[in-house]
């Protein structure tokens, strides 16, 4: 039997570019519903709990906004690097370092008060993530060490640093020996944006930074240099754009975004430094970035989609008896389906002429 061949298109297809995430979502949704039916869970109940229930109450919708914030910010930072083909997979570690740096103020100055505290914490968090990513950039530039491996392994180091601090020097002396820091004082917490919910001021910061990211990618010369370096490294060399500069910039932007998110997490919904802050935002943001087509506007939509799946997945676990791994499986299927669908933006299937007859 003659198989169709994958042939490169002359132009990127705009319709396929727009349709790809929706097709991917449909394929992932369908195949997962089949999977749920196979393990004996009612697919319709799961569907309702996952995609409809999150939007039926003010509170659960606000939880989506809360989850979407860090996903959106980290993904915007990572996407800038991914477009330049610098693959920072270690946003999780940069997120944790951001959380640790930000926590230094309430841990060492638990009595301090004033409006300066939470903004300073955010800045410290950003610097923490930046510093952690700088380690990866340094080794990549000076030893040509693969940034995927270095950044990923540094994430595990970051978790160990977190464990050390929480089990040792930063443990709350009044905390019944639980591995967590003191509860942060009021001025170390981000102001609440929507009354009655946990959504805080960081959402506004994230949306502003999204606009900044759009300008950076679409309009700035630095963004252009990164784009050229990602699409055609030889053209970047020919133009005289520095490759090590691109690596530094990509990783530092990604690290700063992840670090800021980590700070906003401890100073926001969590309110203290604890082991549970590392919930996988850094990894999920990779999916968010690709699902959004590495485009600042697309990422807004994909961040809300993945956040909905988080909240919906929690719902489904409680009300439809879905196993805890199901949400991860869904995310994985979704990324796979999207990467397959995205292939058709620049390629098409051509059937050999004999096969049609």
């Amino acid at each position, binding site marked *: 039997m003659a198989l169709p061949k994958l042939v490169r298109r*002359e*132009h990127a297809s705009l319709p396929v570019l727009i349709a790809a995430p929706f097709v991917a979502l449909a394929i992932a949704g369908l195949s997962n519903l089949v999977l749920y039916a196979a393990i004996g869970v009612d697919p319709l109940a799961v569907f309702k709990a996952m995609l409809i229930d999150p939007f039926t109450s003010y509170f659960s919708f606000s939880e989506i906004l809360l989850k979407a914030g860090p996903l959106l910010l980290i993904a915007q930072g990572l996407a800038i690097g991914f477009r330049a083909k610098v693959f920072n997979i270690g946003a999780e570690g940069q997120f944790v370092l951001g959380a640790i740096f930000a926590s230094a103020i309430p841990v060492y100055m638990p009595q301090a008060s004033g409006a300066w505290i939470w903004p300073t914490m955010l800045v410290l968090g950003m610097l923490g993530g930046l510093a952690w990513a700088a380690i990866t950039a340094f080794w990549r530039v000076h030893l040509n060490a693969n940034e995927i491996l270095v950044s990923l392994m540094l994430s595990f180091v970051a978790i160990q640093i977190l464990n050390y601090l929480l089990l040792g020097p930063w443990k709350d002396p009044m905390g019944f020996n639980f591995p967590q820091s003191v509860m942060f004082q009021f001025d170390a917490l981000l102001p609440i944006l929507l009354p009655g919910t946990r959504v805080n001021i960081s959402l506004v910061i994230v949306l502003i930074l999204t606009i900044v990211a759009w300008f950076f990618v679409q309009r700035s*010369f630095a963004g252009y240099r990164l784009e050229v370096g990602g699409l*055609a490294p*030889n*053209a970047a060399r*020919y133009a005289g754009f520095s490759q090590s500069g691109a690596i530094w910039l990509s990783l530092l932007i990604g690290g700063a975004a992840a670090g800021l998110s980590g700070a906003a997490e401890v100073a926001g919904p969590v309110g203290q430094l604890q082991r549970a802050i590392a919930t996988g935002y850094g990894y999920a943001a990779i999916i968010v970035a690709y699902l959004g087509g590495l485009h600042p506007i697309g990422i807004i939509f994909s961040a809300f989609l993945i956040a909905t799946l988080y909240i919906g997945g929690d719902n489904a676990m409680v009300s439809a008896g879905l196993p805890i791994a199901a949400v991860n499986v869904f995310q994985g299927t979704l990324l796979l389906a999207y990467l397959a669908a995205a292939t058709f933006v620049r390629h098409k299937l051509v059937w050999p*002429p*004999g096969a049609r007859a």
Partner: protein
Amino acid sequence: MPGAIHAILGENGAGKSTLMKLIYGVETPDEGTITWMGEATQIASPAAARRLGIGMVFQHFSLFETLTVVENVSLLVPGNKKDLAERILKLGREFGLEVDPLAHVYALSVGERQRVEIIRCLMVDPKLLILDEPTSVLPPQAVNQLFETLRRLSKRGVSILFISHKLEEIRSVCTHATILRSGKITGNVTPKDFDAHVLATMMIGRDMPHLSPAEPVKRGEKQLELTGLSLAADDPFGVSLEDISLHVHAGEILGIAGVSGNGQAELAAVISGETPLPKMMQGRIAMHRHEVGALNPAARRKLGFAFVPEDRLGQGAVPELSLVKNAILTAYLQGMVQRGMIRRGRAETFARDCIAENDVRTPGPEAEAGSLSGGNLQKFIIGRELMLEPKLLFLNQPTWGVDIGAATAIRRRLIALRNAGCAILVISEDMEDLFALTDYMQVLSKGRLSARFTTSETAPEDIGRAMIGASGDAA
């Protein structure tokens, strides 16, 4: 016709390669039939073509460099290696195609690789042999040797399809010629009966644009100088540059002749600044009296340097980006960036001007660079570099894969630019180009640069001798 050497003649993009791909079964026709030995046939794949007795030598060789000659042959031809090696030697003696069957392909010269390709086709006793631009990669002496082989083959009754756009070659070796223009046959002639000028007119459909020979103008000051520059290759298949010295003055064109793969790419990257030089060599390259060894391409451009690279897609232009964005690539210093932000209006005007002034055929400045034909993209890239108003212009293979009309336009612009006082350095494989353009020539062979020839006092054979003098390609 058995024993005929039949030329397929046409400009770039006339459909020569497409036609050959149909015959060799790489592509299948939408309509119509192919008649082979008096019978209508469908050729579904290259394997089917080989079974029918059709062999093809592609312009870009399809050999595995890390395997030996006989191993490469055995991938397509059944039989044990010892027998194959003997047959390779026998065929080699018979047709003047001597190669060592046990040599590794990466160690062979381009001419020898081509012989391997031809032998591989001959092993299966073909009735038709297709050669796609076989002379474009050969030095002049090796071309004559190839023609001798072709004549011997045709005496044995092998038909040969010879694709080329070099008219003199076709006149000297081919018995028939079919002329293609825009996918249609415009003539079937006996090439010996017509002179090159008439054939060219048939091929491009209008009178050949006449090119006035380059009259020398007054030389200005020295714009580029390399003194005794050496650079070891850092990959095993690269070429090391040894003791390279050259200089170009304002108002003159220096050509670097030679077959690609003799250090052209390495030399180009050193002059453009894409390859960083080790500290001790940095003082050996100067532009406009500045030492530039430590500067990257962008910094050299600020001194008035412009460069047209060999590779258009992926180096000279980013295929996925629009022409506007490709204009920014090297022209960003022309006021296109302000406080770190791109001024799109400026870039768009620049791209529009470049398209209009250089007769680039494209739907508009928003078209992706990858959608342009090779010749049109080259016109855009050269146009962009000229708009930088360089004092020193460097071009690597400027007319490679460009049709005659566009190539003539490019030559004319370069001569005008030289007359206006620009220093120009051209690396080219195309002897016709070099003789039409340059004031002086040097030959690059095995990473070494010959002494300087004055073009008006030099014959192509002298250059040919210098090309093989150090390389031994004449074997």
